Structure formats: C-alpha cells, structure tokens
C-alpha cells in the first residue's frame, strides 16, 4: 500500500518533471548569461513570458475538461485592443463612444487619473471574462464541440479586434507601463509609497519583477481557490468521465460556464499586460494564432493531459516558462536566427514524444485506446 505522499508524487509526476526541467534550464541560463542572476535579466524575462503564461493558463481550463480553446489568442488580442483605448490615462478622461456605420453611440466618459486607469483595467478584464462566458454559452447550450465553437468565436473576437485597431496604435499611460513592466521597487517609486521604495525593509523585495509577482498572485488568489472549490473539482471530474460526473449529481453546465469564463479572464490578463508592455494595441492575426498554438504546447509541457482530468494551470505557467527560456538560450549562444524555429520545433516534438514512452509499458493494448 503506497503512502499518501507516494501517491501524490505519482499523480503530479508530469508537473514535477516540468518544474525540475524549468529549474535546471533557467539556472543554466543565468549561469551562462553575462549579466545572469540580476534583477534586470529577471525583469526582462518576466515581461516576455507573462502574456504567454496567462494564455497558457487560459488554455488549461478547457483542456482539463478534455476540450480545446482555439480562441485564447484572439480573445487576448481583442482585450489588448480594448486596453489601448481604455488605459490611455489622459488627465481629462477618455470619452467612450461607438461608431458603427452611421450610428453614433456615446457611452459616457472614463474619468482621468488613477480612478480611470483602475476602471479601465476592470472593464478590460470584464470584457475578457464576458467573452469567455460567451464561449461557454455556445459550448454548453449550443452543445457544439469546444474546438469548433472556439474556432468560430475566435474569428469573431479577431474581427472585433480588427474593428477596434485596423492599424496598430493607441496609447497606454506611461506610468502604468513603467510600473508594471519593471521591478517592485519601481512601482513603489512611481506611486510614492515606502519612501519611494527606499525604505530599508523594502530593499530586500525591491528587485523582484512585477510580472512574476502578478503571476504568483493570479495563480494563488484565483486559480488555487478555484481548483479547490466544488466547481473546480467538477471540471476535473468532467475531464475524467463526463457521464460519471453527471450521474454523481455534479452541476456540469455551471462548471463548464465557470471554466470558460475563468479562461477568458486569464486570457484577458494576458492581453492587458501585452497592451501595457507594448504601450499600444495591435490586432495581429498571425500573432494571435501563434499564441494559441504556443498555449497548447505550454499546457502539454506543463504536464496537463490533453485527454482531460489531470494537470493544472500552475504547471502550464512552467510550461510557458520552459518554452520561452529555450528561446532565451538562442540569444546567448548566438545560434543563427534562421535555425531557431527549427530547434524550437524539434524540442517541442521531442518533449511530447518523451511523454509517449508510457506506450512501451502498457501490457494490454486496449489500454491505449481512450
């Protein structure tokens, strides 16, 4: 009878593998980096990985239910475009209006200053969650397979993004951009707390990149409680055996709606950060597609089974980190840029094929078909 700990280790083996792999490659990265183990490098890496990590978390939720969300990249892009209007931080406020053909609709004015920015962020996240909910509604009440439903809604979101930003543009408040894409110390000095970040006790935290803190916060405050709730457990149950979950009296529909809404929220966080980071909005269709595909890769590398029911969003964060760190290495080792896509592809293929080694251990061929 294996002990509780052994069972837990065995269950989390893919996640722990991803975690260990990340620790090793990231440690190596800092060792060989000329300015390794410095706050500047951490900040840069954090900024580059945040959006993908959020999109990967968004992708995890439907994958846990054995579905796939092809709209995460598009949803992220749409929120990115909304943010480029809502977070300009203009002192006199931002008038909101809708122009559709000859139709003009004034929707009121977003106040200027910090209130306006906070409100803008809330609106952006709400738009993302709403779009996620729409995905859920189509899947639950339309009874359309998630992969196809989100293929269609993804087109709609990209359409809205293009409508908002036919050309890249817009503006994000400079202070917001500076504070969010740097270390904690810069936030303190921007909003003038803790003696502008010079307080002695604060010094030992000041180097931590804001993006990492945000990631940890979202994971701990949003994902972990969700996973432990009945709704969260229902999602795992749906992924393992939907019929059994239904027969056990779990509210499947509510769990699915919640799951897609949460996915939309995560993707919106990613889009929001991308807008803040690039200080503009860009309805870039190839980029949206690349984010969707990379999110699937991150989820798999992070130890979540595409068959559903096993894994988690925290693993996907590490999956995204591993995927990005690999491309960081190219910069250091001066690998010809032309060969980089090839290496990325080979590593991805190798990573998923190693997971396939379980096939060799299966004694009953029937166990392969699931």
């Amino acid at each position, binding site marked *: 009878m294996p002990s509780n700990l052994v069972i837990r280790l065995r269950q989390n083996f893919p996640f722990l593998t991803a975690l260990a792999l990340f620790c090793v490659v990231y440690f190596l990265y800092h060792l060989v980096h000329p300015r390794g183990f410095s706050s500047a490098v951490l900040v840069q890496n954090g900024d580059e990985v945040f959006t993908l990590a959020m999109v990967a978390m968004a992708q995890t939720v439907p994958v846990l239910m054995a579905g796939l969300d092809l709209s995460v990249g598009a949803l992220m892009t749409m929120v990115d475009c909304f943010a480029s209007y809502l977070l300009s931080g203009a002192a006199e406020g931002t008038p909101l209006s809708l122009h559709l053909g000859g139709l003009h609709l004034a929707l009121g004015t977003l106040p200027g200053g910090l209130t306006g920015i906070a409100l803008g962020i809330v609106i952006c996240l709400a738009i993302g969650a709403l779009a996620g909910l729409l995905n859920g509604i189509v899947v639950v009440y339309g009874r359309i397979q998630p*992969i*196809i439903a989100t*293929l269609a809604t993804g087109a709609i979101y990209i359409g809205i993004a293009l409508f908002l930003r036919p050309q890249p543009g817009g503006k994000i408040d400079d202070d917001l951009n500076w504070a969010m894409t740097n270390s904690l110390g810069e936030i303190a000095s921007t909003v003038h707390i803790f003696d502008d970040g010079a307080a002695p006790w604060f010094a030992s935290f000041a180097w931590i990149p804001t993006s990492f803190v945000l990631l940890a916060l979202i994971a701990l405050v949003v994902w972990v409680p969700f996973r432990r709730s009945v709704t969260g457990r229902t999602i795992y149950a749906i992924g393992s055996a939907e019929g059994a979950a239904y027969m056990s009296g779990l509210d499947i529909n509510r769990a699915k709606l919640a799951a897609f809404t949460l996915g939309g929220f995560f993707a919106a966080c990613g889009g929001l950060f991308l807008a803040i980071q690039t200080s503009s909005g860009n309805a870039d269709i190839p980029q949206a597609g690349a984010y969707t595909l990379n999110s699937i890769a991150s989820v798999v590398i992070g130890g979540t089974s595409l068959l559903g029911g096993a894994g988690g969003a925290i693993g996907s964060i590490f999956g995204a980190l591993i995927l990005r760190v690999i491309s960081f290495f190219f910069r250091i080792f001066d690998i010809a840029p*032309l060969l980089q896509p090839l290496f990325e592809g080979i590593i991805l293929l190798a990573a998923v094929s190693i997971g396939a080694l379980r096939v060799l251990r299966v004694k009953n061929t029937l166990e392969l078909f699931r």
Partner: protein
Amino acid sequence: MTAISALLTPSRDDRPILIAALFIVAILIAGTAYTWERFGSVPLLSPNYLLQQLQIGAFLGIVAAGMMLVILISQIDLSTPWTLTAAAMMATSVGGAWAIPIGLAVGLIVGTVNGLGVAYLRVPSMIFTLGVNAVMRGLMVAHTGGYAPDTTATGLMRTLASGHTFGIPNALFVWLAVSLIVVIILQRMALGRYIYAIGNKEAAAYLAGVNTRSVTVICFALCGLTAGLAGVLLAGYSQKAYQGMGDAYLLPSIAAVVIGGTNILGGRGRYLGTLVGVILIVLLNSVLSIMEMPEAGRQVIYGGVIILMLLVYGRGERVTS
C-alpha cells in the same frame, strides 16, 4: 415520389448537406440582390465568375478532402500550413520534371511521420502535428533564409493550377480527381469502412481485427499528400512559393469539413458535405469581398456563420449517463 420524401425527411447525415446547400443558394441570392442594387449587374450568376471562384476554391477543397479523412478517425492535422508551404517550396526549388513528384513526396513523407507519431507513439494528434508543423517551418526558414525563395513554378505546375481545358479551369479537374479518389475510398473500399469504424470506437475496431495503426498512418499520409498537392498547385497559381502561403488553409479547411456535417469527434460524415462546405466558404468569401466588407466584419460574419450552421444541425447529444 421517393426522391421528394427523401428530400423532405433527410437522414441524419444528409440534413447538414441539404441545409448547407440551401445556405449557398441564400448567399447567392443575397449577393446578387446586392450587386443588382448597387452596380446593376449580376456577376455572381455568370458561369465565368463562378468558375473562377471555384478555381480558387479548389485549393481549399483539396486540403479539406485530406483533412476530412483525418477528422473521420477522430484526429486532426494541424501541420497542414507548413506541409503545404514546404511542398511548394521544395517543388519550385527542384524545378523541372521532378518538381511535382518532389512536392507530392514532401507532403506524403510529412503525413506519414504524423501518422507514425499518432499511431505508434500515441501522442495526441493535436500536439504531435503541431510539433511537426513547427519543425517544417524551421526547416523551410533554414532552407530559404526566411525570405520568399526566388525560384519560380514550372510550366506544368502553372498549367495545372491556372490553365483551362474546354473553358474549365484545370484546377477543378484536379479537385474532381481528388474527390473521386476520396469517395471511392470512403464508399467502395474496406479502408473506408475501417475509417468510420475507428472514428466511432477505436477499441472496438481494434477488437474486430482492424489494423487501426496502419489505417491511422494511411489517413495521415493521404492528408499530407493532399496538402502537398495543394501546395504544388498554389505555387503554380501564384507563380512561386512564399512564406506563410499555407496559413490561410488550416482553419477554413476544418470549418469546411465540419460545416459539411462531419462530426469533429469522427466516425460520421459524407464527402459530399465537405464539398458543399468548401463551396459555401468560398462563395461567402467572394460575396463579402464584392460587398467590400472590411476584414473586421468578414471575420465576425465568418465566425457567426460557423456557429449558426452548427446550431442548426451540428449539436451534440445531451450527456445523460
């Protein structure tokens, strides 16, 4: 009489095809009304215009034919974009008489690799083909230096893609040939029965003695082959191969298959549906471009139509046990 009653009470597999066909007629009527109102002409009803649209649709149709085989065994091939591009690039860079065989061989090899990975390693096709797509992209970027190669398509490729025979585009004949082969496989060969069986329940097909692994490999190989063929033709049509030429074919081909009534979970669907799905998407695109619809509205309508069509006939069953 039986024909009429069959039309009124279509079977489960025919209903989507019928509704999609009606939708095509609706698109044609709406588009014609628009052009008549706006320009006083009816280009949508002229055979030449329709043939030209179908010629462009042939590339999508060929990709969708292969994609359907893979979807029928409840897998998916996401490597299509760069399989198509790689085939086009290799064909143009080899040139001469070997251009087309090399292009097709590239598609066949990539498809076989996909099939081996899915059938023997049991990696979910979603992620394995994604990896293969990334590798092909890497190989082509390394091969071409990240730019469009300056080699051009051979004369035969151009003739096949944009030439006409008896006033009908040659590409349509190629599409017709591919369609015939797929129909024969699905309707007349044991392989077709195996494909549907695997899509319904792979374990059952295995227990019934079907060599599920080789059927899976064959489906992926054929899907790669059609992507390669489409790449060769597309290179012929646009005179050369270029980066990202396959990007516009992945999602529309999946959409065409599904709109045509094929179950995305496999095991159900007729080829005629895929054909109708392709024509629907092509005509929708052409009407929207006649209306000078900006890309934004086009994407929204495109997504809306897919959802609408599936709401009408693509709904899954309620989970009750």
